[in-house]
């Protein structure tokens, strides 16, 4: 190389640039560095001896929250934007104080170094965020294979967000592909030389995620916007070089700034910290995500359901308070069909109007009853969690939809043969019900096609 490193440090900052920089520095640092005490409360509550992937995942998605402090599922709503407004105001105040100090005290700041530090912080913050979200797709957890109940729900009775998730869920290989891209983007950020490429990849990827969230009424548009602003800022650093070389075909200087370490231990510390980072957020997180994956989808309850009962059941007979009700698609009481999942959930279809439960952002729940993915964004079926009392041959039902929290009752069951279930009991409203359920040999088109070698040249009568 024909030039030395000193050549680039000549770049001087004028007053206006300094003021703008002070503001951007304050704003982005406030966004990226966890200063929110609630966050530490959360971190401290983690059992580090039994670290779960969910813990790492939750650590990964810090966003400052001043306005919205309820432990709520939809913590990235419009309130978050209000938080951002607060950050802008605080950053403005900090800029003013900083400028005042700089002027009065005549302190000399090395803006090149501060800028470098800011970029390092953002690179790592962004990498943590995208790698965590990438991992839950690399090990297809985010969108699991649809449940039987979801398969037996009308397309129009699903919310757009639910359809997005189910559609991704039937194609795990596509989910893995998306996750790999996201993780790759994050890894590229860990190296100075590949940062621009990583930032570009994330900008394109999360630009898409952002618009998908808006289009599908998802709950994470604001969070992807949070990541996007960092990716955009990181890419901004190289944009003039990119335009010079690739559009204008003119020569460009590379980024020559190097942080000079005065002491050898600083360099060692740097390598140590970076290794720890990679170990924790890539290695350990990846391993923990893999563990979750092997344990089965975290979106669905873990407790197994009634043995050998999985399936779709036609309700051949239905008695309500002793009165037999024939098949009826418009009756709000009469059960039309029942699904027993592999796990301890059963769902009942009736004509009653159901107030749907919406949960559109990623949350890890430990308790089976809190795992509401299967009913989130659906209408048309009532979802019950059940506990089996094998001695009494009884199912203790609990409506999973938080809108129907009081709906709990006991159903006794008889199994005259392998495909028939007779259930009877008294509902929460005090009505006695008896239903004879026949398991249907229901075939699902996607599975049939996979079994028979795909669409091409195939003929199916189904």
């Amino acid at each position, binding site marked *: 190389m024909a030039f030395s490193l000193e050549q680039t440090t000549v770049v001087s900052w004028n007053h206006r640039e300094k003021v703008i920089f002070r503001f951007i520095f304050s704003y982005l640092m406030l966004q990226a560095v966890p200063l929110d005490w609630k966050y530490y409360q959360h971190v401290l509550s983690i059992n580090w001896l039994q670290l779960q992937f969910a813990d790492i995942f939750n650590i990964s998605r810090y966003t400052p929250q001043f306005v919205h402090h309820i432990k709520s599922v939809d913590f990235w709503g419009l309130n978050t934007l209000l938080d951002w407004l607060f950050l802008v105001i605080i950053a403005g105040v900090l800029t003013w104080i900083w400028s005042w100090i700089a002027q009065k005290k005549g302190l000399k700041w090395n803006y090149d170094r501060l800028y470098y530090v800011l970029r390092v912080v953002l690179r790592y913050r962004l990498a943590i965020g995208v790698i965590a979200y990438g991992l839950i797709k690399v090990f297809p957890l985010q969108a699991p294979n649809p449940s039987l109940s979801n398969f037996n729900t009308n*397309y129009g009775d699903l*919310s757009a967000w639910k359809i997005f998730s189910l559609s991704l869920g039937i194609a795990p*290989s596509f989910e893995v592909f998306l996750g790999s891209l996201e993780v790759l983007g994050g890894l590229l950020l860990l190296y100075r*030389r590949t940062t621009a490429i990583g930032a570009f990849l994330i900008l394109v990827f999360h630009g898409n995620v952002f618009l998908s969230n808006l289009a599908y009424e998802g709950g994470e548009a604001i969070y992807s916007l949070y990541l996007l602003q960092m990716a955009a800022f990181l890419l901004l650093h190289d944009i003039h070089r990119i335009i010079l*070389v690739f559009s204008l075909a003119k020569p460009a200087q*590379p980024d020559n700034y190097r942080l000079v370490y005065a002491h050898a231990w600083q360099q060692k510390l740097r390598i140590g910290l970076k290794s720890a980072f990679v170990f924790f957020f890539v290695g350990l997180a990846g391993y923990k995500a893999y563990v979750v994956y092997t344990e089965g989808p975290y979106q669905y309850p873990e407790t197994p359901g009634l043995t050998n009962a999985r399936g779709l059941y036609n309700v051949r007979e239905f008695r309500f308070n002793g009165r037999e009700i024939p098949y009826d698609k418009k009756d709000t009481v009469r059960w039309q069909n029942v699904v027993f999942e592999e796990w301890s959930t059963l769902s009942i279809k009736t004509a009653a109007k159901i107030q*749907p439960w919406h949960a559109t952002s990623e949350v890890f729940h430990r308790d089976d009853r809190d795992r509401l993915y299967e009913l989130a964004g659906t209408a048309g079926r009532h979802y019950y969690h059940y506990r089996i009392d094998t001695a009494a041959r009884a199912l203790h039902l609990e409506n999973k939809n938080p809108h129907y929290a009081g709906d709990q009752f006991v159903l006794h069951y008889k199994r005259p043969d392998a495909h028939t279930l007779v259930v009877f009991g008294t509902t929460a409203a005090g009505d006695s019900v008896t239903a004879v359920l026949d398991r249907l040999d229901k075939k699902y088109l996607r599975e049939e096609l996979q079994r028979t070698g795909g*669409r091409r040249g*195939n003929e199916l009568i189904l």
Partner: protein
Amino acid sequence: MSEEKTIRQPETANPAVSIPAGDGPSQPRAWTAFQKFAFRVGFIYIVLLVVPPGVFSIPPDFSWFRLWIDTDWTSLHYRDLYDIARFNPSFPWLTQWLGIPRLAGHAIWVTLLAIASVGAFVWTLIDRKAREYNTLYYWALVMARYRAGIGIIGFGFTKLLPVQMPYPSEGLLNTDFGDFSGQKIYWMSIGIVPWYQVFAGIVEVLAGTLLFFRQTTVFGAALLFGALGSITWVNHAYDGGVQGYAFYFVLLGLYIFGYYVPRIHRLFILQQYTVPVDYWPTFPKRWQKGLRYGLKAFVIFLFLGVLFYLQLVDFLYDPYKQPSTPGVKALRGYYDVSEFKINGEEIPYSPLDIVRWQEAIFEKWTTLAYKVNKPTRLSLSNGGGNPIMDLERNFEITGTAGGRRVFHYYADTTTQMLYLQDKVPVGGDSDERGVPASTARQAAVTSGLSAGDWIDETAWERIGDERTKIHPRGINTRRNRGFARGPRPLTRHKMVLHYETADGQRVVLTGTNEHRDSLYIVLDRVERNYLLSRSSLEAGQYD
């Protein structure tokens, strides 16, 4: 073309840096033997990609060029330009002779590599003097850029004006999620968010547009590679069937992007002072300049200007995947089947009955859909192609099971008669290339009710001409020719039903089904409040 070249070099080169251009501007650096061979392979490969298929076959087939002549340029349909923009190489006999496996639709790329390698070998033997191929490389890039740009714009406009993935019909909304094929699920998942589809279309059209200009080519190539790489994967994951054509653009995108990789590597990975050197031919003569700008302007005018307008017309008046004739207004909606009599015998509702209808839907276009618990032949195509007649527009039937029966109808509103035909032909549907999926179909040409005799002359007069039932702006030569040709000669189940309704709440249907059984059906309207948001961007005109 002039042999004089300018080497695009910086006016203000940094004096401290030596320019890595070799022997100076007048004499471009010689390429290594490996570089030359690799270039020859790549060049032949690109030529094979960009030349319309058939030209290299024996005997040559110039059907693509015929499109230019056969098209009525005074009355264009979007598909006229789309067809010109859409082609990809095909050497089926060679692929077969080389014994290359199907590779899920990617065998062709291996075949092309075989041809290009042999070609490059011969070229190497003949051409021993060439020092470098800077000029030829430039032209290879031009070919790749324009081929990819035109192709992807043709593809992108069907999303930018969202008709490629229609919003699900009411029949599809009432089908269970588990009754769809993977392909259908993905297509609908885009169809339910038309604005997102518009965005996807913008990305594709933008990628194509950026490829038309040298200054923006790198961004166009990156977008093309990213977007189409993802689409290729989607087609594999969901069995979409378009992975070959999508990967075609990935290859073109990679070739173009590859030109810039050394610069990216130098500027970012090596972090060295980077001086881009482009060997761009100059066009000193006036006619050369005129030709260059003329061709470029023509491409942009035709594939950005005219095609946008044609696609807009298609979106507004004749969305190509769904029927465009408005259905009978009084009937449109979702119904519960309250009463069902066949040959005078009443059948009470049971979800297991294999004859009784369970629900009925009159779409906003000329379709009646109902559900019966009886296995039926499915249409497994991806709903592509460009059928002109409503009867053959099949997005509402493809990749859908669950006992759904979907009939197209001609309505005689004077006598309140519906003449219905099953949208799934008796012998089965064809796949997207029109290749018979079933040999049974060969035998199933016109029989019985299939001819024109099931609707009498006077009824036809009252029904009117389907061709002219859309907005006049949507009518063009392709549509006229399609109607002149008539429907494909397939056997279809037919029903003739009389409808009666006072206020649209209750509809009584009487008539005969496909087996000539007499039907008496009472339908009661149900207000279905779907959880899924309505489309905020609706294609077609049905008022």
